[in-house]
């Protein structure tokens, strides 16, 4: 069973690199990230990565749904969903495997940004807490985006639709907890929105404060959307 997850995850991860898509994603991602970062880095001349972690949720907003968009929609379009779901493997294992493959690609992208951290370290003397926290936060946020993107991808045979809806839903959850949306007030509703949104949790982790409640939050989001994904794949995706 564990073995099956590993076999599928490996195949799915490799599948990114079988077509030029993964390279296009990664290169585009790195060019944009580096350009945005170094542009202000040299302007401001501050040796930390606050800037970087501030913009990454927005860049991931496009990068991660792109990683997820084809994962189920292609299977539906090609009919391989039928092949996959008649193998002696539990549905949930297949879903976890695809999720892990996507996390693998996100992690690859994050590792490829390490030169930025190294540059910062060479130039100045940064505080490592927020940097490690920031990367952890990004991996968790990426996983949460991914679970949303995968869920949306299972709803359609069209990748482009999956991408757009994925970006949209991630965007909504990203902004609901921010002051822009909830204003300065604090009441029952705004508290819920604040807890439900990605941003407050990400902000606290990327300050270097790794609180277990934030981690529980991200795992709950991933669990929830992967569960919905499973329901969709059992039901309407096969009709």
């Amino acid at each position, binding site marked *: 069973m564990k073995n099956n997850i590993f076999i599928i995850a490996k195949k799915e991860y490799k599948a990114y690199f079988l*077509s030029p898509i993964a390279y296009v994603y990664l290169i585009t991602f790195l060019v944009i990230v580096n350009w945005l970062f170094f542009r202000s880095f040299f302007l401001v001349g501050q040796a930390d990565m606050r800037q970087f972690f501030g913009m990454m949720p927005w860049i991931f907003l496009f990068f991660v749904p792109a990683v997820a968009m084809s994962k189920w929609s292609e299977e539906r379009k090609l*009919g*391989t969903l039928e092949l996959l*779901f008649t193998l*002696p*493997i539990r549905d949930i294992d297949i879903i976890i495997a695809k999720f892990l493959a996507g996390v693998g690609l996100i992690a690859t992208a994050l590792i490829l940004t390490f030169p930025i951290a190294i540059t910062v370290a060479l130039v100045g003397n940064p505080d490592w807490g927020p940097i490690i926290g920031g990367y952890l936060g990004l991996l968790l946020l990426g996983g949460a985006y991914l679970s949303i993107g995968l869920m949306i991808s299972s709803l359609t045979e069209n990748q482009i639709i999956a991408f757009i809806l994925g970006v949209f839903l991630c965007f909504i959850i990203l902004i609901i907890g921010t002051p822009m949306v909830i204003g300065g007030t604090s009441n029952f509703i705004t508290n819920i929105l604040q807890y439900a949104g990605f941003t407050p949790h990400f902000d606290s982790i990327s300050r270097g404060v790794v609180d277990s409640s934030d981690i529980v939050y991200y795992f709950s989001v991933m669990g929830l959307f992967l569960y919905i994904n499973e329901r969709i794949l059992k039901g309407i995706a096969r009709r």
Partner: protein
Amino acid sequence: MIHVEHLHKSFGSVHAVDDVSFEVSRGEVVGLLGPNGAGKTTTMRVITGYLSANEGLVSVDGVPVSEDGMETRQKIGYLPENSPLYLDMEVYEFLSYIARLRNVSAKKINRRIIEMIEICGLKSVIGRQAGKLSKGYRQRVGLAAAMIHKPPILILDEPTSGLDPNQIYEIRELIKNIGQERTVILSTHIMQEVEATCSRALIINSGKLVAHGTIDELLNRSGAHINYTVSIKATRRQIEERVTLLNNVNFGEWLTDELSEHQRLTLRCSDRTNHSEEIFNWAVKNAFILTELTHETTSLESVFRELTQN
């Protein structure tokens, strides 16, 4: 081995499969016949556990099929309609992937793939990308993937669609061979396929099972007959006088002009044995010069048409 009881599956208001029951035992090759939209694919999808039934019971070896039925899934090799494949994988890679997920032990995978290359004629494409194969070769790769774990049960949705005549012949031989020890259900629109490979046929139409039985049973129950077309150098009167002397063979109709000295006519007989010899001897005995004698069997095809025309 496969037991289907009062199976019902609908999509919204469409009753794709409506109260279908049948039984397939070990070592049988059963053909699932029906026009487009009859419910063949849907029936197969329920047996493989891809779709769940609305009502009814499906069991494989006594174990009910369910969406999480790993046990029944492992026993079944399935070729879905149009043989879906991962188009960017190479054929070898694809087969080895499926084999691993089908619990073929690592030691045996290579041997099984080599066997499949042999059986399904994949030698020339084994290193190619699945997406670049012709339809027929995709079909063969799908078939190889379905058989890679030596399943006791094979479910093949239109296995010969898209194949050239040589491949069709090979695949049918293959199915016959497999069918000697294993259970096969295949769907098709092609009657010759059923005659060539299946011991039994199930005919479904608009989701309902309209007939089932061995090929001979199906042919007999529909009042099948054989038509002979004969040309004789004689006048109508001469032939009319003698035609009643034939046993089991009756006059059908004239095909030529009344006054012609060279008559062409049809004769029909209601049993399914060949009466050509008898007709020939009859002609000789009556000094008729026979210039044509052909026969045409009511085929399964017309049985099919009869049963499935609404």
